[in-house]
């Protein structure tokens, strides 16, 4: 920063030193900058405006009757929650949300462990392949999802044509129209876009493990699998934990992959709770808000579990 004017008069070299100690030793004058508020103010304002206020609005909306043009028609009490819990689709949606989150996160971690190990090795072209791994991360997730949607298109999809030409399927199929086939494809895309971040986190973790540990293990006659299980994995635990939790939250909240590929359809057969809340918005804004509140509760629960687990981590480290 160029503006270098001092806030307070600083003793300057050319200033004659105080001759007599007649003046009381000067305490620094309290300026605006010494109050804590200007420093934490922006953070507080940000939290209030971006976090607390929307949460308040969300909860309030869930207790209102709102017309489709957005006019409030009165208080609904807990009616919207009752309506939400009476939705015939809700059970299946929550079930699929759980399966979706666990499958995507599990597969992502497994694949990333392998990929991270691979990229940790020295091989010609490693730098290029490491860059290439960033691609799914750098591209917009919605764009990736829509790209896959068209690749799987019933009549024009390139993947459909390829699968047929390779003799893997008997003819073009409507992959995304049937939940039984749409779900695996969506999981695949979600794993694809989660891999780069997870792999890089684990790779960073691998790089912190000192080489001496491995040397010692070799000297003691440990085989590769044993080394991996007894040395690499335990030392990788902090990185693994970060990757796990961030992925859990990310995948649980994942909207673009599902919306881009099936919009949660047919009906709500491929919708997670987040997408379901969005679907409900078309029919009842209050009920949609109620779903969001429930979703928010689930996320808070997830975060609490994380805090608890990471505390375990500290205890272990001691």
């Amino acid at each position, binding site marked *: *920063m160029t*503006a*270098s*004017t*001092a*806030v307070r008069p600083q003793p300057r070299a050319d200033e004659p030193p105080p001759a007599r100690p007649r003046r009381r030793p000067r305490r620094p004058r309290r*300026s*605006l*900058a010494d109050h804590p508020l*200007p*420093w934490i*103010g*922006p953070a507080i*304002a*940000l939290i209030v*405006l971006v976090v607390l206020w929307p949460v308040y609005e969300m909860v309030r909306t869930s207790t209102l*009757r709102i*017309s*489709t*043009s*957005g*006019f409030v028609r009165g208080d609904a009490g807990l009616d919207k929650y009752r*309506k939400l819990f009476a939705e*015939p*689709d809700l059970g299946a949606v929550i079930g699929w949300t759980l399966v979706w989150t666990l499958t995507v996160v599990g597969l992502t971690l497994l694949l990333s462990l392998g990929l991270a190990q691979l990229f940790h090795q020295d091989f010609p072209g490693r730098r290029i392949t490491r860059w290439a791994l960033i691609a799914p991360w750098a591209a917009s997730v919605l764009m990736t999802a829509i790209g896959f949607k068209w690749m799987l298109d*019933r*009549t024009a999809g390139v993947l459909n044509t390829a699968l047929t030409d390779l003799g893997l399927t008997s003819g073009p*199929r*409507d992959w*995304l*129209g*049937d939940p039984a086939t749409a779900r695996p494809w969506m999981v695949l895309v979600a794993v694809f876009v989660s891999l780069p971040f997870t792999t890089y986190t684990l790779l960073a973790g691998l790089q912190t493990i000192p080489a001496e540990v491995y040397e010692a293990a070799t000297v003691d006659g440990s085989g590769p699998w044993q080394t991996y299980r007894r040395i690499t994995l335990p030392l990788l635990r902090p990185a693994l934990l970060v990757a796990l939790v961030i992925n859990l939250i990310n995948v649980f909240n994942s909207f673009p992959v599902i919306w881009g590929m*099936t*919009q949660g*359809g*047919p*009906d*709500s057969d491929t919708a997670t709770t987040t997408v379901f809340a969005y*679907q409900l918005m*078309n*029919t*009842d804004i209050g009920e949609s808000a109620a779903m969001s509140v429930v979703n928010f509760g689930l996320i808070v629960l997830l975060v609490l579990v994380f805090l608890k687990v990471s505390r375990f981590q500290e205890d272990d480290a001691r």
Partner: protein
Amino acid sequence: MNRRTLTLSAAGLCLALTLSACSGASSGDAGDGTLTLVAADYGDKASNSSKGYWDGVARAFEKENPDITVDVQVVNWNDIDKHVRTMLQSGNVPDLLQTGGYADKVADDLLYKADEVLSVSTKANLIDSFAKAGEVDGTQYGIPFVSSARAFFYNKEILRKAGVAKPPTSWAEVRAAAEKVKAEVPGVTPYALPLGPEEAQGESMIWQLGNGGGPTNGSGAYTLDSKANVETFGWLRKNLVDPGLTYANPAATDRKTAFADFAAGKAAMLNGHPSLIEMAKEGKVDYGVTAIPGKGGPLKSTLGVADWMMAFKDNGHREEIRKFLDFAYAKENTLAFDERYNLMPVTQDTLDEMQGSGRHKDLEPFFALLPSAVFYPLGDTSWDAVSAEIKKSGGSAVKDDPAAVLGDLQKKAEAAAADR
């Protein structure tokens, strides 16, 4: 970095956050003598945007009425609902709005009655079936603006190859024709049944009409799970979906897919509206148009769709609005708009002109259908919510148990009707 600059930037950030929270206030309150018109854009590119049309009408109107100015805002279809909602909520209410639905505004008591803003002659000129569709509880609020009707399209070449001599007129004949197409012309969808979220409510209503059913009964109560409707979906499932005579997953197939398939010569039959004519011509498809097959024979009525004009009473510009609407609904203006976008008229004089001029041969099968068109229960203020429910889950009725799916929908519709 020293402290003053830090303090300043911290304070600045605070200020910026506070300010940004209250920006976006109303813009340009309409003074007296200024009419605000918000209209949907029917064009698909800058050169044929509706903005050009409305600006022309507004300038011509201002020339005749120098004391009134018209402020035209044209918004594309994707954003217009949100745009209007924002205007209403910020108290920046337009005087006139031309868009897809009106009933929710009636429920919030925002609109003038049609009688209050239309002269007797303009009102009498509206085709009856459309004027009726603009009524809420017997009073007309919605003023029809343009319309469209459905008819049965078929690909002549495919039917000829399949050995179907004449287009089907009943459900049984649709099935028979579809079976021949499946056997003789592989790679073509025999009947395109789009029950996906784009317009499930339209396709299902057309089929229900064929069985004497429909979303509501004569007195306006919802009958989504009536015997006729359950039977209709049962028939579709057993005769078109299960034997593979249509898409594998109708509930996930949108109308635009069906239209695109037909225009590419990949679908043999479907229910379409006039915009499909242009698409079929561009795709060089030799198509035919006929009455929609019902269960026992061709349907005498069809599903009509209209877009609406409505007048808001918030600014009290009743006289100015009446003058403008009389001007805008004059034959030369409505005719220009309908011809510009190949849409169907809602006024009698324009219909006569288009039918008589011989310039609209393609539209002729549709003109005949207009007076007998039936509509969604548009005047029911709960229809928007019910229609959204049908769009979301109506399509599963041809895959799962129709009675269960329609029963769930009926329950939701009754709840929505009670909640309005």
